[in-house]
Every structure is written in C-alpha cells, then in structure tokens.
C-alpha cells in the first residue's frame, strides 16, 4: 500500500475554512458510535465514519473529499453535544466541505440547489415573485414600522405545497392571539443555514448580507421563525455579521401566549400523539418544553414520548443539506423514527420543523405506514384546535 502523505498546508487550509477545532480531536471515536448512521445499513453507513473523516482532516490527508463521506453528515449534533474534548464537529464538517465546494467542486446533485439559492434566493427553484403565493386566501399583514414581530417563513413552507400549510397555520394562530406581526415578502431570501452547512460559504455570506440589510432597513427588532434552522442561524451565525434581533421560534411564542391567556386552544384530538424533537430546535437551540406544553393543551393525556427523546432525539436526516440527498429505502433515519412512534402506540407523529415533517412523511410512505401513522407539523394540530 502506497503511503498517504501528511500535509500541514492542507490541514491548515481546512482549519482556515472553518474546521477550527479539528486538531482538538483525540480520536476516541465516541462520535462515530453515537452517529445515527450506525443505526442503518448500506454503503454510506459503511463508508462514513466521522472520527475517521476528522482524522483525515487533522492530518491534511486525502480521502475525505469522497462525496459519500463528505456530504453524509446531517449535522444532527448528537456527536458534538457528547464530545469529551468539546470539538465543534459540525464546524469541522462544514470546513472540510467548504474546502472542496469553495474550490468550485460541489457535487453534481447539489449544484441546482445552490444555483437556485443564488439566483432566486431559495433552494427550491421557486421564482422569487412566488415567495408569497402561500398567503392566498389569507389576509397576511405586511411588516411595517409599527409591527412588533417580523414573521420569517422558511423557504420550504413558501414553496413546498405540503409545507405551505405550516405557514398558513402559524398565521392563523398568531392572528387568533392578536399578535402584531407581518411579513416582508418577495425581497426575503433563504436564511442560508443549509447552504453554509453544505460548504458554500460565499453563498451564505451573500444571502445573510442581503437579509440583514433588508431586515434592518425595514426596522425589524423581533423575528418569529417557522423553522428551527432559520432560528438557529439567526441566533448563532447572523449576529457576528451584523444581524442582531430578538429571534423566537413560533412554538416558544405560542406557548407564552397560551400561558398569558392570550391564546386559547381547545382539547379535541382524540388520538395518541408523539412529538419528534427536531435537532435544530432541541439539541442545537435547547427548546424542548414549549412544543410539549402546547401539545398537552390540545391532547391532554394523549401524548406519548418516543424512547429517544429530547437531548437523545434521533435525527430525521434532513439537516446539513441531506434533505436533498437521495437515500435508498431501508437506510433512512426517518424510518426508524416512524417505527419508534408506532412502537409507542402513537397514531400521530408531530414535529416542529418543516424539514423533519418532509423527511418523516417520506419515511412513513416508504414503510407503507401512512394509514397507521399521520405525520404533521405541530402548528397544524394547534390551528385545528382554535
């Protein structure tokens, strides 16, 4: 076997692209064992080993650029939140992807996604002028100088037909509670969270700058996000670029409104409902209780917990750009999640993230369990209980 060459220059380049803590790793391998890829069979599971990938990164050695390896991580954070060395593993993955994507070598299947985000301000190939199409039939206020909250609707819920229901439900709930909110509209761009995770740093910077200028020019002070991904990047990544607002996920706000008596929800759902913690709402943002409290209001005594919940929740596989990956049936994390829900006797699996909803619906369908388990976004149940 020909020796592989260690390269300080390559290692330092990866570090400069964002993998700042790659050298901290002591290669204990806890990350690999906690990785959801260990729970499914198949080629990606066999090839992708996060410990090994970081090893290649810290030695500046070739091999990590293999697309099956480099783009496998769903950035769920299970490894990172348990790392004994405090290695920021997701940043390292991002840095290593950036060293390839930044050099113009993005994988073929991702190019249309990144291209659309560049051209249209969303990764879903939706025309910019259709960004507000989801509002049809609703009287959604426009954000103005006297509006308290700016409602930022995730691109997924702007364009995906199934997902628009999430945006519509949230609007109904906010209106029922009498919240002062509004949207800006076509000028809004994708938050860029997933673009950055895919390694397209330049694209992220462009999207973020555009949003920051827009929001600030409109006098935005407080933001409600529909998606935990937007929530996370607005709170964790935008501030150092000049975007500093009070940002809240809709579940947190609705829960406050219920507690303050401004929003009343009827108990109605007779079914057993399980809640799936989205990685970016739970592990990444620490929001576990508000969605549960809301659910408890509408299905008192009807909620069940999945065995892997809260900090130990299992990823749907939609983060880190994996929502655009083609994964063979039998290798999808979502299928494990659907099985978890059925094992707990749930009839409804609710989540609070458009990506999770998307991934879990696909998984439920691929298992042929759509008659046994209904996958919904939490806002939908809540809106039905107004």
């Amino acid at each position, binding site marked *: *076997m*020909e*020796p*592989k*060459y*260690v*390269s*300080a220059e390559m*290692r*330092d380049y990866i570090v400069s692209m964002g993998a700042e803590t790659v*050298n*901290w*790793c*002591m*290669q204990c391998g806890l990350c690999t064992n906690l990785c959801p890829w260990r729970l499914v069979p198949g080629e990606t599971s066999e090839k992708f080993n996060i*410990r*090994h990938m970081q*090893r*290649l990164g*810290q*030695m500046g*050695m070739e*091999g990590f650029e293999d697309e099956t390896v480099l783009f496998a991580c769903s950035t769920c954070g299970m490894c990172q939140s348990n790392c004994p*060395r405090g290695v920021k593993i997701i940043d390292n993955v991002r840095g290593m992807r950036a060293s390839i994507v930044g050099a113009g070598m993005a994988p073929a299947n991702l190019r249309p996604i990144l291209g659309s985000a560049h051209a249209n301000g969303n990764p879903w190939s939706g025309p910019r002028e259709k960004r507000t199409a989801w509002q049809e039939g609703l009287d959604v206020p426009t954000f103005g100088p006297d509006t308290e909250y700016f409602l930022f609707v995730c691109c997924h819920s702007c364009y995906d037909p199934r997902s628009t229901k999430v945006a519509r439900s949230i609007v109904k709930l906010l209106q029922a509670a009498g919240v002062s909110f509004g949207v800006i509209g076509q000028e809004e761009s994708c938050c860029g969270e997933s673009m950055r995770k895919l390694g397209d740093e330049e694209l992220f910077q462009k999207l973020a700058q555009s949003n920051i200028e827009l929001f600030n020019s409109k006098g935005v002070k407080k933001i409600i996000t529909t998606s935990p991904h937007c929530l996370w990047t607005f709170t964790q990544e935008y501030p150092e670029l000049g975007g500093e607002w009070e940002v809240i996920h809709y579940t947190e706000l609705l829960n406050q409104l219920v507690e303050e008596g401004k929003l009343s929800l009827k108990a109605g759902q007779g079914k057993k409902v399980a809640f799936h913690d989205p990685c970016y709402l739970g592990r990444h943002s620490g929001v576990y209780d508000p969605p549960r409290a809301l659910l408890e209001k509408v299905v008192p005594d009807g909620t069940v917990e999945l065995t892997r919940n809260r900090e130990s929740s299992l990823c749907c596989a939609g983060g880190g750009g994996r929502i655009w990956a083609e994964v063979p049936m039998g290798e999808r994390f979502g299928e494990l999640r659907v099985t978890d829900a059925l094992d707990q006797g749930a009839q409804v699996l609710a989540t609070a993230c458009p990506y999770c909803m998307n991934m879990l619906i696909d998984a439920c369908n691929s298992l042929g369990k759509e008659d046994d388990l209904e996958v919904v976004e939490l806002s939908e149940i809540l809106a039905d209980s107004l």
Partner: protein
Amino acid sequence: MEKKIGAYICTGCGIGDALDVAALAKVATGEYKVPVCREHGFLCSEEGRALIQADVEQEGVNSLVIAACSPRVMVDAFDFGPDKVVERVNLREQVVWSHPAEDEDTQMMAEDYLRMGITKAKEMEPPVPYQGENLSKRILVVGGGLTGLTAAKEAAAAGYEVVLVEKSDELGGYTRNVAKLPPLTPPYEEPTAFDLEGLVGEVTGSDKITVYTGSQIEKISGAPCMFDVSIQQNGSQAAERVGAIVLATGAVPYDASKLEHLGFGKHPDVITADQLEGMFKAGEVKRPSNGQPVNGVAFILCAGSRDPEHLPYCSAACCVESLKQAKYFKDANPEMPVYIFYKDLRAHGTYEFLYKQLQKDGVFFVRGTVTGVDDDGSGALAISAEDVLTRAPILSESVDLVVLATGMVSTASLGKPYKAQEPKEGEEEVEVPADTILASNLLNLEYRQGPEIPALKYGFPDSHFICFPYESRRTGIYPAGTVRAPMDYSRAMDDAAGAALKAIQCVEMTGQGKAVHPRAGDLSYPEFFMQRCTQCKRCTEECPFGAINEDEKANPLPNPTRCRRCGVCMGACPERIISFKNYSVGMIGNMIKNIEVPEEDEEKPRILVLACENDAYPALDMVGIRRAQYNPWVRVIPVRCLGSMNLVWIADALSSGIDGILLLGCKHGDDYQCHFVKGSELANIRMSKIKETLDRLVLESERVRFEQLSITDYGKLPEILDDFASDLEDLGPNPYKDF
C-alpha cells in the same frame, strides 16, 4: 510468670441464644480447671471490661481467654496491658453466625474452640521487646537526585538527621540536565521552571543533613537502627551509623545505540530526549549534522519501551516529557511542524491539559508503529509509520530533527545476578527458588543473601506494588523514585516523601522493639534454641527478608530488627527450635491435639483448617458476617503466615484422628498477594513433602489440600469447605481415629 487463667464468655451478639453457655463454661472449669470463668451479656462494654479488670486486679488473673467475637475486632477493648496474655476465641463470626443455633455440632465446635484457646493461653508468654545496642535514628539517603534530595529534605524537616550520599561531584542528578518540568500548576498547559538550586541549597544548608558527594557506598552491614555504612569518598573512607535507608539512585535512559531501526547512529539528526533536553538547558537547539536551526521536529515515543526486543514495560514518564519538549518548540515558534508518533499517549491526571493544549497548538499526533526514519534526499528526515487511526501507512513531511523518547532503566537492574553460595558437597540442593539479586553496586549489603535488594520483574527492586509501595524485601531499606518503578518528576517527589516517612516509621518502631510493616507494632520476635540446631540452613534460606546471616559453621545469626515476625523460619525448622513467646510449633501442635475427635461410629469427621490471618481468616469472618453456612466439622487455627506452618502439625493432626487438613494461603506467583512475599509459596513447596509424612502413616495424600484465597473470595469459602468435607467423606474416616 505464674499463670492464672481467666475465661470470659460473652453471650451477646446471638452467642447466648445459639449455645448452651453453661455447658461451655463447664469445659473451662471442669476439663481445664480454669480458676476464674465468667459470662457476660456485653463483654466489650465498659461494664464487661470492668468485670475482667477486677479479676486482673483482685484475683491476679494474668492470662485471659476471651470467648466472644473475632480477634480482628474489639482489639482495644480487650487490651489489658502488655504484660497480660490475651487469647481470643472466635465464637461469633466463625461459630454462631455461620452455623445453626441450638445444634449439637455447633455446640461441639464452640467447645473445641474454647479448648484450643485455653491450651494456647496456658503456653503463651507476654512478649519482651528486643532491644539492640547503640541504636541510631539517622536516615541514609543513597542518591542525590530529585528523589534523594526531596527525601533528605523531608526527613530533616520531620526532625531526623540525614546522611546523603551522591556518586557524582554535584547534587541534582538527572534533573541537573533538565530545562523545565512538565506543568505542575493550573492551568497545566505550560512547562514549569523548577528551582533545583533552591532544593540543593536547602539540603546543603541544613544542619541536620550530612552530604557526601563524589562518594559510593562501599559496604553496609547490620540491621535497622544498627546499620554500619562505609562510604568511599574520593579515595578516603568515612563511616556512619544509621537506622534506615532510602534508596534513590534513579534510572538511566535506555541505550539508544540499540535503536538503529529508528535511525539512531545512522543519522546525526536523530537524537534522544535527554540530549534534546540538554540542548534546551544550554539554550542551543541546533541540528547536530550542520549546526543549523531546527524548523521541524518529530518525536518518537516508546523508543525501546513496550517493545519485547528492548524494554517490555512502559517507562511512564516519556509521553509527558515529549509533550513538554514539543511545547518548548511550539512556544518558540507556533508555526513549526511538530510530530508525535506514539503507541498510547499516557498523559494521566492534569497532564491531560498539556496534551489538549498541544493538540490545539496543531501538533500532529500519529498513533501507530514507526516503520522507517529516512533521509529525504535533501538531508532532512521523513518518518513512515503505520497509522492506526486511518488504517493506512503514512509518510510525514520532512523534519530537521527526530527525537527518540528512550525509556527508563532502573540503576538497580544494572548488575550481574549475584550467585548464591553453592551448596557444599554432600549438602542438599536448595529447594526454595532463590531471589533475584543483581550486584548493581548501590548498597553493597553484607547480607548472606546477596549485596542488594531482591528485584522483581525487569530488575525493579519493588515489593508488592499496589499494596505496599516503598517496601522492599529488606527491612529498613525503602526504594523511592525511578529506581523502584518508572515515574515522572512529581511522582518521584511524592515517592521521596513516602519513603522518608517509611524510614522514620522504621527507626521509631525498631527503637521500641516493635515490628514494622506488615505486623506493625508486634513486640514478639523469633528466638532460637541453638543447642539443638543442626545447621541445616533452612531458616536462613527461607526467610523472605534476609533477616538471618550465618557464621562460618553455618549457625544462623538472627537479626531481630530485620525480622518481620512472619514465622517462616519457625515453619521451616525441622528441629522446631524457633519460637515466639506467643506463637510456637508446640503451642499450635497442642491446640490441634486438644481438638476432641469423636469416635468413628459417631460419623462426625474433623477437619483442621490452617488459615492465613491476613486474607483467609478475615474471609472466614466475612462468611459469618454474611451469615453464610458451612459444615460444622472444621476447626480453624489462624497462622501468622501460611509460611509459618510446620509440617509436624500435619502429622500431629492426622495421628490424632483428624480426617483432613485444609491450608488456606494467599495467591503466590508473579502477582503474589502474600504479605510476607514468599510464605504462601513456601507452604506450597512444603506441601510437596507432606506426601512423605502421609506415606509413612499409610494415608491418602488427598487428606491435605492447599487453596489460594484472597479476602475477596469469601463468597467461595463455604463451597471450598463443604467440597473438601464431601471429598473426605468419600475417602472414609481417618483410620487413626480410634487409637
């Protein structure tokens, strides 16, 4: 001493409910005519003690038989002064807690134990402590490096006079060559400056410490508190009398010329860690090949260590030492490529922070085996290795300097094996495996057994490394620092303080005629009835501690202050001339003979258990504390060490009709558990000779069994005891029973 025995039966803790105490008392008063016999419901209470004290004062009772709980508990409660004999009869743990109440066999067991106790009390005498002459409490420290200096400083700080002997002309040892120590203070990320001169100044400036530099130990004779030391100093002689010795001669780096496969000797830029340290100390770090500055460096760890071809053991300090040196380079130039090739990185405790910091500094850590150190064609060196973590061969970038972290070799291991005196013609071959003693020219002891401390694996003169650190197999001599085990600076300093404390304990205890570890405080010591000695040398050969010298006629010359009071000599002596005031072949033999052996048709077998009092006996107590049950045929006698077992006891037992004998000793072998190092092993060797005795008596050899037992094995004990009983039942009763 005019004996007056008092027997005291406690009826508390369930004893009174389980036994017929009146019948028991009758054994004392009737069979043995014990003049004073009392029972009490709570004997260890103030009231119970007062009862006994009153008899001592008013009745003149001076030999007490306390039939109550285990001798391992309530030791202070039943101490009535050094001039009183106390024998404890264990009715609680080993009778009523482990056998059914109100049962005929349980009662017989209790009565036998009382018989045995009274028998022993009749023969025991209060020990008279040994007092040597011209006792010294000074402490000799051999070696003036970091460990020796620290030991000297600590002993002096505790108020003891110290004699420090250093081979070279300057104090400081290896540390003199060291630029900085690994981090010792928070945040544990930077090498620490160490004030060696300050330590040397404290030692040389102390009026309690006499320093000999440029000196060697020519000879040490004597025993604890009576060691006579001859010191050779630059041609002149000096004599010192000391009480105890700390051996702190340190270690030397492994000979790198044997590491050609790592490039040493082939490339001038491959150097050892101590050479690099010297460069930093001198402030001149340059490539040896051309005198140019170093712009890239690779450390190869385990250079010689953990390698069956070289040093099979881990040298413990090199990982952290290399991390420290890597930090020197990174501090000087953060951009410099630094590689560390390792097998396992052992940076324990707070050294983890240093390791972490160096990872953050961007050091390349490569786990795996180095397969080559080669010239890259331009005069620089590239290292190839099998990287475990990528499962691939890798090649480093070129570096200017390769540093081999060579392991540590104890100075005690640097000598040829000392040849024990060959047996003279006509004498028996030595049957006991001799200790490994390497003539390393450190202490030059005038001991019959050899000039240095016996070595364990790899030549380290340690004792049991977990249970008894700083102990050696020579009483009063305590190895500390890298001479006894590989260790780093801070541990060596701790070691120095520990060994100094051991030495202080030794001189204090010995001064009072008391034993040191592990029978610390014991006042008894073996006495030899020389008129009957046959000069067989068993005692001198078998003593695990080299306590017995011999004269030219092969008469044993005991050194009581070297003695640990284990009784191995007593077990070894075929003439039974070695006895303690309170422990002898005759006493135990009479205890055995006083066990009542029922006639054959009663179908009540008897099993003698000789149990080591360090592990097996407490394990038997544990069985009772856990209320586990075992057969009532056993009669247990605790022995100081199974090595003190004399074969005559086996003959005594079998000829009195006892059906079987179980010997419970500690684990022996490489990772022995025996408190007296070789006692259990010696008992096992003697076992092989039991067959002779049995053959003579025409008895099956299965009647004697040896089991190795650790205190944690107590759960297995009922099964061991019952299996033996059942095997004896298969053999049938001892035919000598009805004689």
